[in-house]
């Protein structure tokens, strides 16, 4: 017990102490720039936020990362994992090379894509122009900025899904496939009846991990769009940063953080309980 103490004391202290400040700020008129006395305002920060359009649009954008980007990552990761698993040799080499996007600092990811997609001197648009297309300005265009960020997020995090599903594919014993072949099952049937069910727990883990992480998307937005054009690519994290550290309204920013924490807890609980109910049901059915 005494061995756990230093670490637990540190973690507890460092969660509760700043969290106290956060809670305090979110129920007061805490602003750094303005030397007015701090007042207790109750739920004012929360109600003001929720009556503003920016809150709902940034919530929508966080939802797009969680519910559009993540499923696409699962699909792409599944495809890649199946392809890598199907080759005879060199699997580990491919897996290591495909892992590179997620090993890099998000800030470098942002820079590479910013340069790559630059409408004037970037190589992608030069290529597209030479093929006769009229490419958009990607991260700088109002219509394309959000899809571009979603694509970069998919690019960066598909490798994690791929690696989780590779672990899953490896766990399926070869005799299962042999048995399926003996039973005369074709490729599609094998995939639907054997591979997918056996990968299901791995896909759930990938989904939960990526769902939680999708609330963290910040660095690539900061580097690629700064939340713009206008506020069109501000997710909750970026909006919180903007309110807190561009305008120094810590009351509102604190309230925003707490809202995100609550959403994340609710979201994860809903997913996990749905999964538990499902697996309980399927176990009951197979008995």
């Amino acid at each position, binding site marked *: 017990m005494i*061995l*756990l103490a*230093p670490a*637990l004391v*540190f*973690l507890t202290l*460092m*969660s509760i*102490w*700043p969290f106290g*400040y*956060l809670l305090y700020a979110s129920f007061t008129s*805490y602003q750094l720039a303005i030397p007015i006395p701090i007042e207790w305002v109750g739920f004012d920060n929360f109600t003001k936020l929720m009556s503003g359009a920016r809150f709902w649009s940034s919530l929508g954008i966080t939802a797009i990362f969680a519910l559009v980007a993540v499923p696409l990552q699962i699909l792409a990761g599944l495809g890649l994992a199946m*392809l890598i698993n199907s*080759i005879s040799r*060199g699997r*580990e080499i*491919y*897996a*290591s*090379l*495909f892992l*590179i*996007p997620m*090993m*890099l600092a*998000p*800030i*470098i990811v942002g*820079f*590479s894509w910013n*340069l*790559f997609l630059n409408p004037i*001197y970037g*190589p992608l648009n*030069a290529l597209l*122009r*030479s093929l006769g297309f009229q490419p958009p300005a990607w991260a700088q265009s109002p219509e394309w900025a959000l899809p571009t960020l979603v694509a970069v997020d998919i690019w960066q995090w598909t490798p*994690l899904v791929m*690696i*989780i599903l590779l*672990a899953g594919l*490896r766990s399926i014993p070869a005799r299962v496939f042999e048995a399926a072949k003996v039973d005369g099952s074709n490729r599609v049937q094998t995939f639907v009846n054997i591979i997918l069910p056996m990968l299901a*727990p791995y896909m759930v*883990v990938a989904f939960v991990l990526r769902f939680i992480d999708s*609330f*963290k998307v*910040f*660095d690539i937005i*900061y*580097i690629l769009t700064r939340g713009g054009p206008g506020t069109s690519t501000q997710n909750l994290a970026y909006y*919180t*940063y903007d309110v*807190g*550290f561009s305008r120094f309204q810590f009351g509102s920013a*604190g309230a925003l*953080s*707490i809202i*995100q924490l609550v959403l*994340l807890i609710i979201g994860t609980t809903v997913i996990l309980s749905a999964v538990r109910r499902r697996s309980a049901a399927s176990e009951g059915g197979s008995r």
Partner: protein
Amino acid sequence: MSRSLFNDFLRHFALIVILMAVLSPLLWLLLTAFKPYEELFNNPPTILPESATLVNFTEGWEIGGGKGIMDSLIVSSISTVICLILGFPASYALARRFPPHGQLSFTILSLRMMPPIVPVIGFYLLFQELSLFDTYTGLIIVYTFMNLPLVIWLLAEFMRQIPKSYEEAARVDGASWFQLFRDVLLPLSLPGVLTAGILAMIFAWNEFLFSLVLTGDAVITLPKALASFFLFQQPNWGQLGAIGIVAFGPLLLLSYYMQRLLIRSFSIELGGR
């Protein structure tokens, strides 16, 4: 037989094409690092540098890359060492006294799941109060907080693999707690310690939001130094690429090790149930 060989060839071909497409933005940044300034904004751009140069590396180091690398080294290595010192005994206790998927493990790990934007405001206000804003100490505390849960959890996984009989034998021989840790547990869990240390180091090295918000002009970590180049309308991409290669390229060498580690951990975590 030849048909399956052909299929295999097609799959390799598909994988290589996808890989090239996926890595092209990074390869582009790599090539850009060797281009002189005049060549950066050519339209259409040149693929290979026409007059390759290393000037971006020396200039990049001078205008802030060097400071960034030093500060990042200080902050991430010290926080990693503290994580291991605090985490090692804690993980032992966790592995021996608590169930593998119990409440305590879950609570510790869930701290890791929190989006950094949530604690960052609290840390900012606290650091203003304690004069820790823009200090190495402040950032080290935050990175320790960020990585300690993962370090404890990972080390506990490794500790569970060590047979209890080893430490019982050491206890019978009259070894003290310190001796038990230093002479028995540390050598046996060395791969785990290395793994946890490398991961903590990478996460601290790559971290951006905390250093953006919690430091000013005194402490400038690498990601923050790179982001500050970007305040200009037309950043010097050559210097950016050069610093990027020097600072983040070596991490990619760990990629092979990392995919093994990840596949193994997910297999154990999910296959074992």
